[in-house]
């Protein structure tokens, strides 16, 4: 506990020493408020309900700071930059925008993308209206830290009625030079009325380097708009990832989220979705593949604040070796949110007796005409199915690989972008027992 108390003072010092020269007053005020909130609460102890199962020790005992300059991309990182076909790509290296590798000049009609620094200079613009206005820093220490420290990020605006066919691919890379570095990218996506956009965010980093990526994405979906977003986490084996996605959804608007946790020492994503207008819809899909020694965590807070909204959540976990995962999902239905239809499913597959999965579905319903469902399973492979396949000549390892693949593949089928789906499939295959054989069978 002492260590934690010291840590927050360290961040307060960093905050007080930051360069405020180019910071508009409104932004300075929001950052100070966030810092005060972090300073008041500190890093959460295990007594805090929303954090009790999250392993944070190596994050809270380290002092992470923004990188002064970006490190060198190695061969492997370079080869992983482009995944999504036909995308407009924007690259951050060690938390810093890499203009040369980005395609900010190749934006399709109806789409405006500015750097956070540029957008902050606009008075009364979309940043001032929405940035750090919907997400509640009080509820989340890493959200508070991001607001206090972020300098790099993007403000994405989709024009009324626009539906650009090209997705945006934001790539966040951490290099081997990023020891003790924190990346605090901040992205604001604003979809105007009847617009549609797809944004892919991919995070990966070098193995063996202890860094922290703590991104915050705020989404504001105006009436009848649709935002499809992919959160794709493949951090290095010593990397920590603590991300927040916050969506405010107006009437008739849709949010389609898809998260993949493929690697990282500690990976946690918190989804906050507020369905604020009638007829809104939220779909959240998640897949966490947790390797030996790693930890993955997805928290969701879906709030039905208006009538006739729908939400679906399907989260699946595959755990190998001595790994641990948490799913904690809340559906909150406000008193006036009649005709709500909400569903939440969490399924976990343990490939090893040492793997541990926690599943905490939570419902809070204050309206009286609603439909809510939730299901939660934690289990091992069906031994009867394994045996059945073995009697047909498939080896034990292959049988387990195929069954595991079948379990997780359902999540990949919900990925609309083919190139991304294939990439995710590779990530899944690399985790499977009997990988080569499974590949041949498919």
């Amino acid at each position: 506990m002492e260590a934690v108390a010291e840590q927050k003072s360290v961040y307060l010092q960093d905050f007080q020493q930051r360069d405020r020269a180019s910071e508009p007053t409104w932004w300075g005020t929001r950052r100070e408020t966030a810092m005060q909130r972090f300073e008041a609460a500190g890093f959460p102890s295990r007594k805090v309900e929303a954090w009790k199962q999250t392993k944070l020790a190596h994050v809270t005992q380290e002092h992470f700071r923004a990188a002064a300059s970006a490190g060198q991309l190695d061969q492997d990182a370079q080869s992983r930059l482009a995944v999504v076909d036909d995308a407009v790509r924007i690259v951050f290296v060690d938390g810093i925008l890499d203009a040369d590798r980005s395609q900010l000049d190749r934006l399709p009609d109806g789409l405006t993308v500015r750097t956070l620094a540029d957008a902050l200079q606009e008075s009364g613009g979309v940043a001032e209206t929405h940035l750090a206005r919907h997400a509640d820093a009080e509820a989340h220490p890493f959200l508070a830290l991001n607001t206090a420290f972020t300098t790099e990020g993007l403000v994405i605006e989709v024009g009324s009625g626009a539906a650009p066919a090209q997705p945006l691919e934001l790539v966040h890379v951490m290099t081997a030079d990023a020891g003790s570095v924190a990346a605090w990218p901040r992205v604001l996506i604003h979809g105007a009325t009847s617009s549609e956009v797809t944004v892919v965010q991919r995070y990966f980093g070098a193995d063996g380097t202890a860094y922290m990526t703590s991104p915050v994405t705020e989404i504001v979906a105006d009436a009848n708009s649709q935002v499809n977003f992919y959160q794709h986490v493949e951090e290095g084996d010593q990397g920590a990832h603590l991300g927040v996605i916050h969506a405010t959804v107006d009437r008739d608007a849709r949010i389609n989220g898809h998260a993949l946790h493929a690697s990282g020492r500690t990976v946690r994503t918190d989804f906050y979705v507020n369905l604020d207008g009638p007829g809104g819809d939220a779909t959240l899909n998640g897949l966490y593949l947790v390797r030996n020694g790693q930890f993955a965590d997805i928290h969701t807070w879906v709030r039905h604040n208006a009538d006739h909204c729908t939400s679906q959540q399907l989260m699946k976990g595959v755990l190998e070796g001595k790994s641990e995962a948490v799913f904690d999902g809340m559906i909150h239905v406000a008193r006036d949110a009649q005709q709500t239809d909400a569903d939440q499913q969490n399924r976990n597959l343990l490939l090893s007796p040492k793997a541990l999965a926690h599943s905490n579905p939570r419902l809070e319903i204050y309206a009286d005409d609603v439909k809510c469902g939730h299901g939660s399973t934690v289990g091992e492979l069906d031994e009867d199915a394994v045996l059945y396949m073995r009697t047909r000549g498939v080896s034990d390892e292959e049988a387990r690989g195929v069954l595991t693949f079948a379990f997780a593949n359902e999540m990949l089928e919900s990925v609309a972008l083919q190139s991304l789906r294939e990439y995710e499939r590779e990530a899944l295959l690399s985790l499977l027992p009997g990988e080569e054989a499974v590949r041949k069978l498919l």
Partner: protein
Amino acid sequence: MSASNETIEQVTRKGYEYGFVTDIEQEYAPPGLNEDIVRFISAKKEEPEWMLEWRLEAYRGWLEMEHPDWQKVRFPPVDFQAISYYAAPKAKPKSLDEVDPKLLETYEKLGIPMHEREALLGVERPEEEKPEVAVDAVFDSVSVGTTYQAKLKEQGIIFCSMSEAVRDHPELVKKYLGTVVPRKDNFFAALNSAVFSDGSFVYIPKGVKCPMELSTYFRINANHTGQFERTLIIAEEGASVSYLEGCTAPMRDENQLHAAVVELIALDDADIKYSTVQNWYPGDENGVGGIYNFVTKRGLCAGKRSKIAWTQVETGSAITWKYPSCVLKGDDSVGEFYSVAVTRNRQQADTGTKMIHMGKNTKSTIVAKGISAGEADQTYRGLVRVNPTASGARNYSQCDSMLIGDKCGAHTFPYIDIQHPSAQLEHEATTSKISDEQMFYCQQRGIGTEEAVSLIVNGFCKDVFKTLPMEFAVEAQKLLEVTLEDSVG
């Protein structure tokens, strides 16, 4: 209030069809409960000494127990000394042919076939297609007749009243009675164990599939009495049986107590299906009168791969308080609970089930549908427990409530207690109003209000009705439709 809601509300003021009284000479125990009464009942039934001792032990236990108050139902305290614990028609028939014609008439009026080769009421169909149903008819405290006994006996099946079983099959009764629901299990189970009158006894020998539906029809007739039946069903290895129970009572201003105990035992690979259509007198629209239905029903899946399924359609009683449960002790055993509960006027129901997983790879399914109308209040209370020994346990629970009008209430308490990490649980819950929106949607497609209500309600109950034996499914659907027929004015 909108027009469609008004039509639906009329549902809640429908009369009770089975409220008549049969005028027949009866003998009673004096009101009140003490050891002498217990002895009186035992003597009336000409029971052996061990049975009397068993009852007295239960009675002494009951004296030390307190009336439970955790359930979400409200009623004035029951005066257990004001009830007569034994009432029976004076004439004692030796065979079906000798049964008082008034009694036969009563059952005829209720639609219960007391002649062999006749089916339960319901659909009109050619004689040869009517399935055979064996009936044990219980009138107040005694069984007045059991049909098809001889035919069942050919296969070694015992189907008789509990009194006969105590007399003719003491070894089976001694072996199983009170093993699933112990005498001191709860307040009302203890009371029942002390004073139980008749009820049915079923024994299906090893490997026998019972060739017909067995059913017991419970009728409360006498005033100031309660009914305390006791039912015990044993399915030996590989045996299977489908059992039905129906209940009605006259309309009276007083509340009458019905405190039954039902025990089911399924050995290896045995299969018991127990269906109830409960239509006790529910009281009038102001909540005067009606039956207090406080029942303990529990099945033990003792053997491997055994299966027990409870299906209940609960439309009657002023207060219902029951949780038909399954103890899944055998590996790979299966427990099921399907329920439709309708409460209207001032009825209250606190009902649900318990699924206790003890064996490996045990499976349970719960589908509970509650319809609440008028000023009625209904609670689903369910427990799914997975013991540390129960690896690979699975449960699926679905609890849906439908509210008709805005003065009724529905509450859902799904308790879950998991002590093994491999458990797989799914839970779905809906609370909906038979909404103006649904009615208007149907009407806008050209479907009239009467058809729309029946469409919506039957659709809501479909998952449960399809688990009932054919005859009873028709019966249950009719019961709901009778309830709804006044809804179009």
